């Protein structure tokens, strides 16, 4: 059984019912678009700004022009649902040791050649099995499963934006937080609104060069950096993941530029995760990232003065732990996605009382 089949088999059994394409339950008018002459529309959700003819869809494949009005076809149309450790997102400074009820719909607004979940992100909603999971039901399921948060993840939550907003609201009513795992390729206005509804946003920063974004992601770097600045201004908790791909985004110069930008624009306390690449989708010709490359990236960012630089997909590595930047002791000890020890009191280091930024709570899996 390969990874893809395994993941599919993990999906909640009730997802088996294939949703009919025309099912009105999943269709809501899009929040951000502009009407144009001749029944065309311009999508204003992501920087791509697709201009879409009647009966056509945008780049994401999940939003459709119907007679000059624009609709999301994936509201409550969940194609993957799992209970995951929040560390798997990864979010290391957000309720560590807790589980996140994690959901996705089909679709994505970029096309990364290294996508691990291309079989849901790069398809149209009618091409995968889905189930109807409206916001209140989702929030209820999160509570039933002892998940203090809902994670919108796996594919690209920006393309199921309306569902995220509604579910985050339903979650808040149930005392359940919301976290978004995104590539950050979104326009400022919808992002600002998102920030008001959710509690944390993790951004996959794919590289620190426009060239990479153009050739490997089919997107742009600048809007993603703008999104990170918006998150900073809005004060929503943010962590960054950078998937290190051999030969494509692993130079010292790129790591240094990244670290310098993060420190100067976002501050030294933003957690930055360097994650190990595995060959997948359209990038099967490259090897997994050598550990030494990840350690080099961390060393460069540490030297630049970032306080929380982690390594991911390397279980057991000391760089999975959170170290107090003042006394240099471990305040959150991890092994893979498991939190083994928490040495925090009210968000402060137990040893030296240094404030560790993040959203902390009572861990359920220590």
């Amino acid at each position: 059984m390969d990874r893809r089949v395994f993941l599919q088999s993990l999906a909640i059994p009730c997802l088996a019912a294939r949703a009919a394409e025309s099912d009105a339950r999943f269709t809501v008018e899009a929040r951000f678009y502009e009407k144009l002459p001749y029944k065309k529309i311009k999508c204003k959700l992501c920087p791509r700004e697709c201009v879409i003819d009647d009966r056509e869809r945008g780049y994401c494949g999940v939003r459709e022009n119907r007679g000059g009005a624009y609709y999301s076809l994936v509201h409550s149309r969940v194609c993957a649902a799992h209970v995951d450790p929040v560390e798997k997102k990864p979010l290391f400074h957000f309720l560590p040791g807790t589980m996140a009820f994690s959901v996705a719909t089909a679709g994505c607004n970029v096309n990364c050649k290294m996508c691990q979940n291309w079989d849901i992100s790069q398809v149209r909603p009618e091409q995968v099995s889905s189930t109807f999971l409206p916001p209140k039901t989702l929030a209820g399921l999160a509570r039933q499963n002892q998940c203090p948060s809902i994670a919108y993840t796996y594919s690209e939550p920006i393309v199921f934006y309306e569902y995220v907003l509604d579910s985050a609201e339903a979650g808040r009513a149930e005392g359940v937080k919301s976290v978004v795992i995104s590539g950050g390729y979104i326009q400022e206005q919808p992002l600002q609104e998102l920030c008001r509804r959710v509690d944390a946003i993790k951004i996959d920063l794919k590289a620190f060069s426009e060239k990479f974004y153009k050739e490997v992601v089919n997107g742009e770097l600048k809007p993603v950096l703008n999104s990170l600045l918006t998150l900073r201004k809005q004060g929503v908790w943010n962590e960054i993941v950078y998937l290190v791909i051999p030969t494509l985004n692993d130079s010292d110069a790129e790591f240094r530029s990244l670290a310098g930008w993060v420190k100067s624009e976002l501050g030294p306390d933003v957690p930055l995760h360097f994650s190990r690449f595995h060959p997948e989708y359209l990038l099967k010709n490259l090897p997994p990232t050598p550990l030494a490359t990840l350690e080099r990236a961390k060393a460069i960012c540490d030297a630049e003065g970032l306080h929380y630089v982690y390594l991911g997909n390397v279980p057991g590595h000391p760089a999975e732990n959170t170290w107090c930047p003042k006394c240099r002791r471990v305040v959150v000890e991890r092994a893979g996605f498991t939190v083994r020890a928490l040495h925090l009191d009210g968000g402060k280091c137990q040893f030296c009382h240094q404030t560790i930024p993040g959203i902390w709570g009572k861990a359920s899996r220590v």
Partner: protein
Amino acid sequence: MQPSAVTSRRNLLKACLAAPWQALPAEGKSKVVIARDAQLRGTGGSIDSSRLLRILDRAVQSLHNCDSPEDAWRRVVRPGEVIGLKVNCLAGRGASTSVPLVEAICERLQQAGVSPKNIVIWDRLNRDLESAGFRVSSRADRIRYLGNDAAGYENDLAVYGEAGSLVSTTLTRVCDGVINLPVLKDHGIVGVTMALKNMFGAIHNPNKYHTNAGDPYVADVNMFAEIRQKVRLTICDAITAQYEGGPSYMPQWAWPYNGLLVARDPVALDHTGWQILERKRAEKGMKPLRELQREPRYIATAADAVHRLGTNDPKRIELAEV
């Protein structure tokens, strides 16, 4: 990324092995036949089926230098084969492959020995087929009409250059050969849509490949072995053509061209059709597509030394008007 930089050994081998049907003669020309009939429409604008059949025959016979339609079609299909007709139906009635043209082709296919049950009319969605006037049916004893949404896609990706897609099982598993039936029309993003672009209807993710005016994606998708090995002939429906506002049907920019473009070389056909649309745009005082940043550069890419899907060199295109 340049196509040459991502041509893998696998793709190179696939390209070498593919396309027994549509490969160009090394030194020869690609023939594009344009058949027109000013009287194609009867009173009220409806298509005269018998006249349509005659221009279809003229075109296919001219392409194959045959004296009879049966002989010409036997150069395309063999008895017992399952033949797919890849129509273009996204735009609904008006700017989709017309039903009378499909009926005329089905008639000739049957005369060439293809039984009705072995003819499959297909496109992306059942919904699109129906909106264009086809009645969706998968009865095994009749001509079948089948959307990819009902038939499904392969599980493994077809990959070439910048494109990676799941290909329709109608193409890969059902059909022995495919006749491509696009429409001569403008496309608001990639410039024009005809033979090459119509193959976006064979993949699961066409929405991913419209950026950069479809270049090199349209060419790359047509390099998939699954497509190259199956498509034998293109009959472009130019009964009603559209020079602006496509791919949706915009009657204000449509005109009765009253013709068909027929070729085995999809690149030569697309280049020829593109020039027809540009001439019409000029006649109407509209800017050329290049000035609108939607010149269909993918046509040149399809003709380049890496893809070699056909020729866009006017000196190597033999244009026959019949």
